[in-house]
C-alpha cells in the first residue's frame, strides 16, 4: 500500500472505529487519534517529499501509485503528489485536527457529526492526492455532500435553507465541471489512441483549441463556484453563517481551496491556450470579487457573515492570482490558499468559541470581551492581523507574492486590476479593525458577559495549532514558497510555449 492512499484509508478506518464506539467521549477520542495520525502522516509526507527532492528526484509527481480500475474506459485510481498537493495536504490535516478539537463539545448526535466530518476530510484528502480526473471528481463530490447533513442537522439559524442552497449551488457547479471533465476526456487523444483521464497524460497532448474554448469556461466556473467566484459566491455567506464551527472551519479553510486548486490544476494546466485567451473575463470577475467581498464585509453585523465576505475577497485573490498565469503569482495563489485556509479556520474556530459563550454573533451586542477572555481576544487579534496582512504572519507573504507576481505583466489591463486588487488591503484593514474594536475593545455592553470563562484546554489546543502554523509560514516562508515554486515549473514550461 502506497503512502498516499493511507490518507484516504485512515479516515475510513476512523469512521469505522467511530461506528463501534459507545458514547460521545470515545467518539471524540477516536476521531482525535485518527486525525492526529493523519497530521503526523502529513508531517512525514512533507519530510519525505523534501528529502526526495533533496535526493534529486526530478519527477513531476512523487509517491505515484496507479491501479487500473475501469480498463475499457481507461479509468485508473492514480495518485501522486507534487509540492503543491503536499502543501495542501498539510494544510488540510492541520485544519481538520484543529476542527476536531474545536467541536469537542458537540452534544447532539456526536457520532454522526464526527463521521460526516471525517468523511468530508477524507474526500478532501482524496481530491488532493488524485491524478486521475475520474477519481478526482469522485472525491470532490464525496467532500461536498456531507456538508448538507452537517449544516442541516448541526447548524444554526436558517440552516435548512442555507444547507440546501449551498449543496445545490455547489452541485450545479459540479454539473458544469463534470461536462468540462468529460469534454477534456473525450478530447484527450486528438490523434487517435486511447482516451485518458490521467492529468499528466492529458498535459502531454494539446487539446484542440475549439474544444478548449468550450470546456475551459465550464471547468473554471465549475471549480470557481466552490472558490466563491464573484456572481456565484452567495452560497458562502449563508452557508458559513449557518454551519457549525468545525464545518465552517473545514469549509472555508479547506473545501473552498478545492476550487482554487482544481482551477489551476485542471483548468489552467490542461487547457492553457483557452485559459490564456479567456483569462481576461475571469480576471475582471475575480478582481471584482476581491474588492466587492471586502466592501461587503464592512457593513455586516454577524461575525460569520463578516468572515464569509472576507473569504470571498481572499479566495477571489486566489483565483485572481491563478489567472495571472506566471510563476510568482501562482506561487502566491497557493500560498494564499494555505494562509487563508489557516487564518479563516482560526477565525471560525474563535467565533464558534465566542458564540458558545455569548450566544450571540452580533458585534453590536458585544464589546470589551478582551477583558473577560484575554486568550480568545488575543487569538482573535492575531487572526485579524493575519487577515489584514501583517508581516510575520502568513497573509502578508501570500498577498505580497501575488501582487508582485501580478505586477510582472506589463500591459495596462493587468496593471490596473493589480492596483485594484492591491487596494483591497486598506479595505480589509477597515473591516478587521472595525470588528476587533467592536468585539474586543471598549466597555463591556452586557453584564452577563462579565463572568464568562476563558478558553478550555481543547480550545486552546485547537487555536494554538493554527496560530503556530500561521506564524511559521509568516516568519519563514522561503522553504514553502520554493517548494511550491519548483512544483510549478511544469505548468510554467507548458505556459511559456503558448504565451509569447
Amino acid at each position, binding site marked *: 500500500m502506497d503512502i498516499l492512499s493511507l490518507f484516504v484509508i485512515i479516515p475510513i478506518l476512523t469512521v469505522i472505529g467511530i461506528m463501534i464506539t459507545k458514547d460521545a467521549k470515545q467518539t471524540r477520542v477516536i476521531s482525535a487519534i485518527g486525525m492526529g495520525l493523519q497530521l503526523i502522516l502529513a508531517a512525514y509526507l512533507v519530510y519525505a517529499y523534501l528529502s526526495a527532492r533533496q535526493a534529486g528526484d526530478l519527477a513531476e509527481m512523487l509517491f505515484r501509485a496507479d491501479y487500473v480500475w475501469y480498463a475499457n474506459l481507461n479509468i485508473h485510481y492514480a495518485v501522486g503528489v507534487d509540492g503543491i498537493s503536499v502543501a495542501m495536504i498539510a494544510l488540510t490535516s492541520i485544519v481538520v485536527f484543529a476542527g476536531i478539537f474545536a467541536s469537542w463539545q458537540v452534544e447532539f448526535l456526536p457520532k454522526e457529526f464526527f463521521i460526516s466530518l471525517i468523511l468530508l476530510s477524507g474526500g478532501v484528502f482524496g481530491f488532493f492526492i488524485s491524478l486521475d480526473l475520474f477519481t478526482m471528481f469522485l472525491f470532490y463530490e464525496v467532500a461536498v455532500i456531507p456538508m448538507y447533513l452537517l449544516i442541516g442537522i448541526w447548524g444554526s439559524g436558517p440552516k435548512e435553507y442555507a444547507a440546501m442552497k449551498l449543496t445545490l449551488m455547489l452541485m450545479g457547479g459540479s454539473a458544469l465541471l463534470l*461536462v468540462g471533465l468529460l469534454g477534456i476526456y473525450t478530447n484527450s487523444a486528438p490523434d487517435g489512441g486511447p482516451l485518458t483521464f490521467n492529468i499528466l497524460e492529458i498535459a502531454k497532448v494539446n487539446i484542440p483549441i475549439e474544444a478548449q474554448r468550450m470546456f475551459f469556461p465550464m471547468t473554471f466556473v465549475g471549480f470557481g463556484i466552490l472558490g466563491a467566484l464573484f456572481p456565484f459566491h452567495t452560497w458562502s455567506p449563508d452557508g458559513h453563517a449557518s454551519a457549525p464551527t468545525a464545518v465552517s472551519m473545514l469549509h472555508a479553510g479547506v473545501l473552498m481551496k478545492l476550487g482554487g486548486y482544481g482551477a489551476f490544476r485542471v483548468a489552467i494546466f490542461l487547457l492553457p491556450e483557452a485559459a490564456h485567451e479567456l483569462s481576461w473575463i475571469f480576471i475582471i470577475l475575480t478582481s471584482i470579487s476581491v474588492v466587492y467581498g471586502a466592501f461587503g464585509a464592512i457593513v455586516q453585523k454577524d461575525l460569520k457573515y463578516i468572515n464569509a465576505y472576507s473569504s470571498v475577497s481572499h479566495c477571489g485573490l486566489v483565483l485572481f492570482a491563478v489567472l495571472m498565469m506566471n510563476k510568482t503569482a501562482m506561487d502566491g495563489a497557493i500560498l494564499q490558499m494555505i494562509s487563508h485556509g489557516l487564518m479563516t479556520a482560526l477565525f471560525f474556530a474563535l467565533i464558534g468559541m465566542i458564540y458558545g459563550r455569548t450566544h450571540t454573533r452580533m458585534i453590536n451586542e458585544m464589546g470589551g470581551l478582551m477583558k473577560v477572555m484575554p486568550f480568545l481576544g488575543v487569538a482573535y487579534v492575531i487572526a485579524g492581523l493575519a487577515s489584514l496582512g501583517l508581516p510575520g504572519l502568513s497573509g502578508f507573504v501570500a498577498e505580497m507574492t501575488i501582487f508582485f507576481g501580478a505586477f510582472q505583466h506589463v500591459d495596462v489591463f493587468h496593471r490596473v486590476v493589480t492596483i485594484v486588487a492591491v487596494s483591497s488591503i486598506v479595505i480589509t484593514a477597515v473591516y478587521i479593525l472595525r470588528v476587533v474594536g467592536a468585539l474586543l475593545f471598549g466597555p463591556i455592553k452586557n453584564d452577563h458577559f462579565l463572568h464568562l470563562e476563558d478558553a478550555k484546554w481543547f480550545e486552546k489546543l485547537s487555536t494554538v495549532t493554527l496560530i503556530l502554523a500561521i506564524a511559521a509560514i509568516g516568519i519563514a516562508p522561503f522553504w514553502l514558497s520554493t517548494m511550491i515554486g519548483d512544483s510549478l515549473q511544469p505548468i510554467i514550461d507548458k505556459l511559456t510555449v503558448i504565451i509569447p
Partner: protein
Amino acid sequence: MNLDSFLLMRHEMVLTIITLMVLIADLSFNEEKKIKVIWLATALFAINTIIGFLPNISGNLFGNMYKNTDLQWTMKNILNLGVLVVLLQSVEWLKSADNKYKISEFYLLVFSTLIGMQFMISSGSFLMLYLGLELATIPMAALAAYDRYRHHSAEAGIKLILSAAMSSAVLLLGITLIYGTTGSTYFDVVALKYANIPLQTLAFIFFFSGMAFKISLVPFHLWTADVYEGAPVNVTSYLSVISKGASAFILIIVLFTVFNSISMIWKPLLYIISVLTMTIGNLFAIRQQNMKRFLAFSSIAQAGFILLGIIGASSIGMTSVVYFVFVYIFSNLGAFGVVSVIYYKTQKENMDDYNGLYHTNPKLSLIMMLALFSLAGIPPVAGYFGKFFLFTAAASSGYYWLVFIAVLNATISLYYYLLVVKAMFINKSETPIAYFKTDVPAKIALSICVLGIFFIGFFSIIYQYLESISFGI
C-alpha cells in the same frame, strides 16, 4: 431443430414450470396452508434465479423468432435478481389478512409477466415481441388492481389496462405499417429493408411510442404516476424497476439491431424525448408528497437518463444502459423496500410522515438515504458510476449539451431527494413513526440492495463483462 435446443429457452421454461407448480400447490393446499405458498414460490424462484446463472447457450429457435445470446442471458438474469428482491419484500404484505385468499394469484401474475418480458427480450420477430409485450402488460393490470377494495388500486388497474390497450393498438399499427412496407415481421429481414422513407418513419414512430409507453417516456408517461400511486407498493416497485428495465433492454436491442439504418431519425427523436422526460419528470417530482407518486416521477426522470446511453448508439452506450439498469434496480428497490416496510407497518406513505424517522428507525433511514443518493448519483455509491458511464457514453458521441442538461437535471433531482433526507434527518416531528422491527425477508432484501448499492461501483468486473457482451451500431 432437435429437442435439446429447447434448452435455449431455459429461463422461460423453468419459469413456466414454476408457475404451474405454484398453481398446483395453490389448488392442493387448503385454506390455512395457503400461507405456505409464499415460501414455496419464493424458494422456487430463488432456485430459478440460480439456474438462470448456469452457463449460457447461444442460438436461435423457431426460425429466428426467438434468439438467445449472452446479452439476453445477462438481461434475464438481472431481471430475475430484481424480481427475487421484490418477492422477498412482498412476503409480509402477502401474509396480511385480506390477502390470504389470493396469495398464489400474486405469484402467478408476477411470473407470467416475467415470462412475457423474457420472451420480449429474446424476441427475434415483431410477433414474438408483441406477444411478450401483451403477456407482460395484461396481468400487470390485474396486479395493479390487486387490493380490490381500495379505490386507488382499482383505479390504477383500469387506467393501466385501458392505456395499455390503447398503446398496444398504436404499436400494432406501427407493426402493420412495418410489415406492409418490408413484407416481414422478422427483425433481421426488416433491418435489411428499412430505410428513411416517410411511411417507414411513421411506422417507426408509432412503434416507438408503444415502447415509450412501457418505459414511460414523456409524453407517453401520463399513466405512470397514477398507476404507481394506486397499485400496492410491491407491485409499484415491480412496475417501476423490472418492467421498465426490461422495456429499456428491448428498446435498445430493437433500435440497435432493427432500426440501425434510420439512426439519423431516432437520435434526434431520443434527444428531444430524453430532455423532455428528465425535465418534466423532475418538475413533477418536486411537488409530490406521496412517496410512491414521488418515486414514480423520479423513475420517469431516471428513464430519461437511460436514453443518454442509447443515443450514443455505441457499444459503451449499451454497456452503460445495462449497467445503469442493473444499478438502478438495487437503488430503486432499496427505496421502495423502505417505503413498503414502513407502509405495511404504519400505513403511512407521505413525506411528512417521515419526519424525524432517523431518531426512531436509524437503519431504515440510512438505507433510504443511501438508495436516494444512489438514485441521485452521489459518489461513492453505485448510482454515481451508473450515471457517470451514461454521461461518458453520451459525451463520447459528442452530445455535450445533452449531458449538461442531464447533469443539471441530476442536480434538480438531488434537490427533491434531499427533501426526503431532510425529512428523515433534520425535521422534527411530534408524532414520529415509532420504532419497529423489520421482518427477516425484508431485511434480507434490503441488505441485498445495500450490498449492491455499496459495492457494484467498486468492482469494475461487472462493467467489463457487460462491455464484452454488448455491441453498438
